[in-house]
């Protein structure tokens, strides 16, 4: 859904608002769901998140969602999965060094961030992802208090 992804970055301000409004609601619902059902509904919930974020952002379900801090451009679409980009290989027309048919995820990210209210978060350093979380639902992780609401790992905040 490359085109929708580009659309999401172009309208990062709107998606930021949507995200800010919907995310706490989803997390609140999931907190309730978690209390009643425990882990039994993890698979459909994760599939739902993957479907929705996949369609909108080409989400790769890294389980360390940073969209609100990367201009609504998913960094896991970067062939080098750089979390603090861009790298130095961006082509003159702003496309990716590895995939010339794709706009650089991080050129998009900085552009999206410039449209966002809290876009300055892109200037903060994101430490490397926790690979154990691959395929897991970020929403459930927030609901269960494993990570903070803004997606930062609890351990990371102490460590770096």
């Amino acid at each position, binding site marked *: 859904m490359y085109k929708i992804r580009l659309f999401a970055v172009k309208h990062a301000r709107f998606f930021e608002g949507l995200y800010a409004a919907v995310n706490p609601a989803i997390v609140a619902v999931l907190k309730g769901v978690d209390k009643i059902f425990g882990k039994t509904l993890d698979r459909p919930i994760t599939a739902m998140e993957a479907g929705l974020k996949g369609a909108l952002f080409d989400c790769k379900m890294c389980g360390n969602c940073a969209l609100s801090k990367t201009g609504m451009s998913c960094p896991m679409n970067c*062939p*080098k*999965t*750089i*979390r*603090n*980009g*861009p*790298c*130095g*290989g*961006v*082509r*003159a*027309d*702003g496309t990716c*060094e*590895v995939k010339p048919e794709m706009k*650089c995820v*991080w*050129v998009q990210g*900085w*552009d999206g961030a410039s449209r966002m209210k809290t876009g300055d978060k*892109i*200037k903060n*350093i*994101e*430490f*490397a992802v926790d*690979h154990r979380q691959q395929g897991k639902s970020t929403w459930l992780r927030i609901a269960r208090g494993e990570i903070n609401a803004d997606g930062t790992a609890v351990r990371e905040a102490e*460590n*770096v």
Partner: protein
Amino acid sequence: MSDLALNTENYGTNPGDPLPRLEGHVSHGRFERVLKAGHFAVTTEIAPPDSADPDEVLKRAAMFDGYVDAINATDGSGAHCHMSSLAVCAILTRIGYSPILQISCRDRNRISIQGDTLGAAALGVTNVLCLSGDDVGAGDHPEAKPVFDLDSISLAQTIRTMRDKSEFLSGRKLDLAPRLFIGSSINPFVPPIENRADQLAKKIASGAEYIQSQYCFDMPVLKDFMARAQDMGLTEKSYIIIGVGVLPSAKTAAWMRANVPGVHIPDDIIKRLEQAEKPKLEGRKICAEIMQQVKEIDGAAGVHVMAYRQEKWVGDVVKRSGVLGDRKPWSPEDHSTSIGTVS
């Protein structure tokens, strides 16, 4: 800067021995000494051989004797296999050179990288350059698995954690922290040009104490970038060394521009090479001119000469440019002080 006592006492009896760490310095290395003494530094790049012969490394390094303050040992550049950066550095430190260990995130995960970081420091390496690395598809083993566990910024943070907190990322304590001068790279010449200074700020915040840039062939873009960096106070926080290149011909320049990721060469440079009677000489003249212009920029701490397959000309362009002034960087044969001859 007066803490740099320019005498032989700072220098060990065996060239491979570590220098004493000066006050306010993070490393034992002479590269940090040169920069912190306020000298305009010159660094270059050694092409690691496709060979198991250590003499080949020393032969290649000797070409730069007396012209450079530090030598970068590339880490599988362009995703091609060569002798490892760590091994090249270890060979160079034995006789006193100040190599810069390049660490790319492409081939190793955080476990391997932290192990190599300790090993490098143990082998006398005092400088690292943190890079993301070229994609595997660019090299001669495109079927290899790209690792990219860390990125260059996470990598700098990792090494800083090891050095300053004396612990691994896991929090496990080190008995002796690696004393490394941490560097990172920047490319001000490709999009998003308006955000490159912000990216530089992130690199510095992650721990980069010096920066080596991608090839500069476009002075106006560089000047804008440096002005911005200076406005943001970044030139105070980090030594910014500008990459310069020796182009042998218009054809090579055009090829590099089209095929080497991140290389930006304006048309007028290519035209100048095309019209020159002696393109090779012209390429060196262009390089020397850019070096001179870089030296004039506020906040530029040095130049990094990249002369792939033109290494024998590095000395010539450095001499031609005059950026060293009366200074002669340290070399194995000739060293009146720990950092070379300063008159």
